[in-house]
């Protein structure tokens, strides 16, 4: 990367190309974007790195100059509550992705058939995906209410007992269920796109060779779908790891810390303890976790983007 940058520098020093066209020109097209991205991402990240090396607590003036070295990082990495938050985050993302991938695939397989009102079904089934997450969470919290909540009323109506949806034991599951409800259409749409690009000749050939419907799915359709599933899982996994709105409005990370993911953990430490040194250290550790987890996806996106269509 540094070699490419050096090459860029050398080129831009010459202001005119051999054919007389100004060479500096094209870069102006990306300058505003570069400026904005550096201001909002690079600046704060560097600032955070500097702050994470101090014992800065907002309520103690002067503490921002107390050098801490790597003490904040050591502190965070040796804290059981941090690792608990990491576990909750990963478990949340994993469970939610697996479940919504399963439901989404099932719905896609159903929608891939000849149906009456097929496009209407498609449009309606994707609604949960685009509703404002804050709206979803506030509404689901009402659905989950123990006494007047709709879910419990339905359960009672069916002759079953009430469930304490947001109790210590169940809150994590309820949080996952809400996210699965929201992410299923995303998987459905991506996998439907995959299904509709299956090579029909290949399917016909398999049929002629005597493959039954299960075999056709297992050996022709599924291998074709795998890349679609991986891409969808990667994108949704990242989104779920970064989820804040829904969790905050449903449980605020509780009861206890049973639904405290890294985002909730960071937010709480920042805006209740005002410990900036520690908060910024967590932020950097979280960035490293997310970038490591997403590096295969980044690499894939970068690689495929360079190939000419």
């Amino acid at each position, binding site marked *: 990367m540094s070699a490419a940058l050096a090459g860029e520098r050398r080129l831009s020093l010459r202001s005119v190309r051999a054919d007389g066209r100004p060479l500096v020109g*094209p870069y102006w097209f990306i300058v505003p974007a570069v400026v904005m991205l550096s201001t909002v991402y690079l600046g704060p990240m560097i600032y955070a790195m500097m702050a994470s090396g101090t014992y800065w607590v907002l309520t103690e003036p002067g503490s921002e100059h107390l050098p801490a070295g790597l003490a904040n990082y050591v502190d965070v990495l040796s804290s059981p509550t941090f690792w608990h938050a990491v576990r909750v985050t990963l478990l949340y993302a994993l469970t939610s992705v697996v479940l919504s991938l399963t439901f989404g695939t099932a719905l896609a397989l159903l929608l891939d058939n000849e149906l009456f009102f097929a496009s209407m079904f498609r449009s309606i089934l994707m609604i949960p995906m685009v509703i404002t997450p804050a709206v979803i969470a506030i509404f689901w919290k009402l659905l989950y209410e123990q006494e007047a909540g709709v879910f419990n009323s339905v359960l009672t109506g069916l002759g079953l007992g009430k469930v304490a949806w947001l109790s210590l034991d169940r809150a994590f599951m309820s949080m996952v269920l809400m996210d699965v409800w929201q992410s299923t259409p995303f998987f459905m749409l991506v996998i439907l796109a995959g299904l509709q690009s299956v090579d029909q000749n290949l399917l016909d050939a398999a049929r002629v060779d005597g493959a039954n419907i299960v075999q056709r799915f297992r050996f022709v359709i599924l291998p074709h779908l795998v890349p679609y599933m991986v891409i969808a899982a990667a994108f949704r996994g990242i989104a779920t790891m970064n989820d804040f709105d829904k969790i905050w409005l449903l449980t605020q990370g509780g009861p206890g810390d049973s639904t405290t993911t890294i985002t909730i953990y960071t937010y709480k430490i920042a805006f209740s303890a005002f410990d900036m040194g520690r908060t910024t250290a967590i932020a950097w550790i979280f960035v490293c976790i997310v970038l490591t987890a997403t590096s295969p996806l980044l690499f894939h996106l970068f690689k495929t983007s360079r190939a000419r269509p």
Partner: protein
Amino acid sequence: MTLAMRALIRKTVLSLACLAIGVTYLFPYIWMVLTGFRSAADTLAIRFIFTPTLAGFGGVLGDSGFQGHVLNSIVVALTTTGTVLTVAIPAGYALAHLPIRGAAFLVAVLVARMVPGIAILIPIYLAASRLGVLDTHGVLILLYSTFNLPFAIWLLRGFFRDVPGEIREAAIIDGCSDRQVLTMIMMPLTTSGIVATGVFVFIAAWNEFLFALALTNTFAATAPLAMVSFRNEYGVQWTAIGAAALIISTPVVLFAVAMQRFLVRGLTMGSVKG
């Protein structure tokens, strides 16, 4: 039984299955819609049959606090969309067609897309409070615009790449500048892609919650924050929440349905064409 009849029966059965699954799955959404149309006395009873009323909508829309939130959301989301398109269109075009060394920038764009918001929230909060721009529209617009840039640049670059480079070369030989190629040739050819990108940016800005929660208080607070207030002020105001939920979510739902042709491509940053 003829083949056509068997096909028809199959189609009917599958359609009915789809309807049943759809109604069950969308139950929370259906319930939300119904709640908006109930009278306050009706909301405690769990039943589907009731006399619909627009009282909830009247109450919410007459609430000057809620009006302010929605107006803020409209201003912020529209300005963000305009800013993102103005900055991302030239960048996307440059990365698709111009002889620049874009590899480092492409990587930076991708990495920025993946950086978790919470990681930069604190430094941004501190900077905003020091500059005295907390609770202003400007700070939200700048942040939302930048958050959506990576995604918009990436997507637009894909749309511009669908236009053959020969078209640009021919126009350059005819004496066009790159600015003219972009505005007079490329943009008209990619209008639907640009519109789709703009709509996705609008939706993202409209739905954003974390930064609005941390950086605004009352003056610039956006619509998703209004939802919270209906739960806190006088206990749970079901009808108000139902009506507000519908008012806030319906525009995004309609936009997304209208753009569903591009939705998959947008959500996977072009890696699945849909």
